[in-house]
């Protein structure tokens, strides 16, 4: 039986699949912009310690609140530190912590959601009510409680953020699982006597993976905003480590006469969030989750 090349699609290696997805993402203007911004930030996070022109913690009272100039591109802050140096270094902590935080959120939220979706019944009811209860707690208050009890170290922040942002993923993963669970291939696996673990691993995960990954990418950008809010309130990164949230918080009183010390970290933070959002959208479209772009027939 002949199948024409447009329907022909052999099994591809994982690398080929990933690169195809990235190419599809970059072929759309919004995806291209998002990916570029994200990649720019990631590269910057890696190289900034080597390219920063000044020492980020060098205080110089004689250079307080200098306007941008050829020497100090983004000016200086109230302690005479170079804003450019602090801005390019300011995303590192946030990016790292939220990246690992979203991985944890993805993992526990995704697996718990799939498990609840598959098992159903009373277990599902109880777990989901607990998740709902946690959803109703304002996350920032809970975070503040945790941080004030356990400190603001990375080992506390990553799992705490991961926990709070994973709750929403539980719901998405559970809903995605419900879509799959009614299909006959799951019934067939059950009738054959596969274990729950095998059903989750072999039958469900390949079918809900895409939806969960997209949700995880969206959570990443929210978590970034959340983490920066914590820093803004003084519960994230401790000074003098440069961090956007912290920089905005410090300089916000000076906004009327030293706008540069606020604008630089704001641009840094919002561009990263926009970049991640656009990338997540493009990712969803490349995976075909967005219905409007599905090919005809």
């Amino acid at each position: 039986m002949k199948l024409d090349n447009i329907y022909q699609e052999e099994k591809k290696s994982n690398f080929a699949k990933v690169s195809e997805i990235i190419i599809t993402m970059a072929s759309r203007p919004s995806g291209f912009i998002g990916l570029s911004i994200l990649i720019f930030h990631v590269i910057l996070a890696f190289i900034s310690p080597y390219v920063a022109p000044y020492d980020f913690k060098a205080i110089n009272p004689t250079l307080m609140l200098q306007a941008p100039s050829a020497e100090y591109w983004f000016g200086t802050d109230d302690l005479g530190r170079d804003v450019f140096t602090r801005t390019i270094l300011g995303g590192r902590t946030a990016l790292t912590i939220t990246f690992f935080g979203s991985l944890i959120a993805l993992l526990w939220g995704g697996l718990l959601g799939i498990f609840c979706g598959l098992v159903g019944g009373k277990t599902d009811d109880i777990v989901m009510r607990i998740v709902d209860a946690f959803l109703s707690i304002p996350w920032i208050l809970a975070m503040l409680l945790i941080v004030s009890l356990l400190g603001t170290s990375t080992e506390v922040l990553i799992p705490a953020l991961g926990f709070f942002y994973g709750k929403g993923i539980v719901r998405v993963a559970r809903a995605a699982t419900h879509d799959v669970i009614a299909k006959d291939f799951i019934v067939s696996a059950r009738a054959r006597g596969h274990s729950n673990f095998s059903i989750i691993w072999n039958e469900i995960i390949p079918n809900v993976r895409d939806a969960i990954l997209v949700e995880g990418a969206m959570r990443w950008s929210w978590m970034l905003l959340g983490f920066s809010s914590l820093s803004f309130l003084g519960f994230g990164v401790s000074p003098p480590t440069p961090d956007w949230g912290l920089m905005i918080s410090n300089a916000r009183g000076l906004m009327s006469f030293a706008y540069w010390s606020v604008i630089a970290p704001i641009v840094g933070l919002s561009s990263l969030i926009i970049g991640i959002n656009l990338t997540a959208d493009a990712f969803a479209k490349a995976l075909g989750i967005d219905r409007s772009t599905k090919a005809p027939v």
Partner: protein
Amino acid sequence: MNEIIQKVNNLSIGFKSKKGEEILILRNISTNIKKGETVGIVGESGSGKSTLALAMMGYVKHGLYTIGGECEFNSSNLLKMKNRDLEKIRGRKIAMIPQNAGQALTPNLKIGYQIDEALQLHSDLKEEEREKKISELLNKVRLPSPETIALRYPHELSGGQQQRVAVAMALAGTPDLLLLDEPTTGLDVTTQAHVLELLNFIAKDTGTSMVYVSHDLGAIAQVSDRIIVMYSGEIVLEGPSREILKKPIHPYTYGLLKSIPKLSLAGLPQSMPGSQPQPGTMHRGCSFFDRCDFSEEKCKNNSPQLEYLEELNTSVRCFNHKSLMNDSQVNQTVNEIKTSTQDKEILNLSEVSISYAKQKLLDQVLNRISDDNPTVKDININIKKGETIALVGESGSGKSTILKSIAGLLRTKGGIIKFDQNRNLSSDLKERDPNDLRIIQLIFQNPDESLNPNHTVEEIIAQPLKLYFGLKGEELKKNITDLLQKVRLGEFYMSRYPRQLSGGEKQRVAVARAFAAKPDIILCDEVTSALDVSVQAAVLNLLQQLKEDFGTTYIFVSHDLAVVRAISDRVAVLYQGRLCEVGPSKDVYQFPSHPYTEVLLGAVLEPDPDIKPKLVAEDIVEEKPPQKGCSFQGRCSRILGDICKNEVPPWQLTNSGNSIRCHIPLKELQKDQIN
């Protein structure tokens, strides 16, 4: 009668592939619909029949576009019209009846309101007149007590009634042309026959032209004056329905008619090899070349033109139609099925009952059974090794429910399921050991849903092999190749994903997966109803072959009596979860029958304009089995009276070993039914 109302002229519709190639879904279609005529468009899935019907009301699906040609209605081209002008035509002049009326009706609006909406849009009637018109319309589609129906919500109606409401709504604008897209496909056999009869009546009564799109030649044969046969986006045969069905002069139609199982013929029909070419893969020659029994060298490179034959009033697209004309009476030959039934009993259901009702807390505490009227009750069946037993009935008859219980997917409420005379199968899946699970395998109705879309064929078939036999590496691969060979698929299918396979191929993979477990019993749940007729015959033949090779026992669930006739050794007829009749297949299809079997047999549609369905009972849908008495009492046309309402009928044995559960003595039944 000869006035043309819809003129399709050289129409081509297609889409652009990712590579920018133009791919045609419809290729140069030209046809005319005359006033008062019913035209049936028939073809396999993917032949472009729905696209053509939609184009007839000026609609082209998202992603497709018109490449050339026009659809003229009242001498204006619908495909070039603005939406605002189209609105004036759609509903008023051309109306559409969708396949699934249940989904086409708004669930939160009352029926009367929805029809009123259609009337407001498509007629100039005043409010009081509209009210009268609503009951008039509901009356016309023969819905009982129109006033009460108008006050109901769509979910309160049965599938057949919903379809009637859709017909009433379409008639609201008194259209000149009615487009019907598979209007009876989702309905039960008896309901289907009733709806078709209604459509026939409406066509005659109102003089509306109808375009009836279906894959089912049986349904088309009942309603159409003229038939258009489509194949891969082209018209291959067009002519009066009698000529086409009795003397199909195109090899595709000929093959199609031969692959439909008939009630009058036991045994498996011949299948047509191959499948329809995908759009975009058309070669220079005839698109049917690969599958044609009559092809010649010239068919390969030259594509035949539609040729009009005056003596038959038929157009045909084939070089060889003359040779077909001579012997084109469809002489159906069937492959006799060999019975491989052994004396050994393999599965025994005794007194099985199943209930969907949830146990109330009080009943749980007191440990008593709450539901005294379960969905399925009193099922006693012995199944012999190597036998094919079919469970037949309309939707809601409990046939799939019984299958699920045998597979352990649904707990029984009472009764025993015994395997191999001595092993009790627990009704709880978790209590069955792996071997109990291995011996029973399932094949599902829709292969799109039963195969994991993210697994390759290799991974799909490997699952049971790994689970039950722990196979690995080379041995696993060898086993998969063997299985693929058994279901006539090449080794190269291993790396394909289900979406790259055709419906028939997918179902073969599902069959291979079931056989991978080396089961003793295979449960087939409507395995062919999602397939095209030509593919259906191939899958049935394959199942029969595998059964002869492996000595497997099949429990075959179907609503299609002709398919059941073709493959089964024994038939059990179910109504409302109760057995009505059990017996060897040849006897069940002969009188005397249980009155319900009689209804089912009468409603079977055959692709022959001379065989009309016999509508014995009303197509009422009962939601619950009756508390006492005969399960069929509500619809039975031969009801005797109180005895049927109060006492469960006894089993009566006919001479040929057929058991019928009815109060009417067999002799009387036979006498009545033959008349």
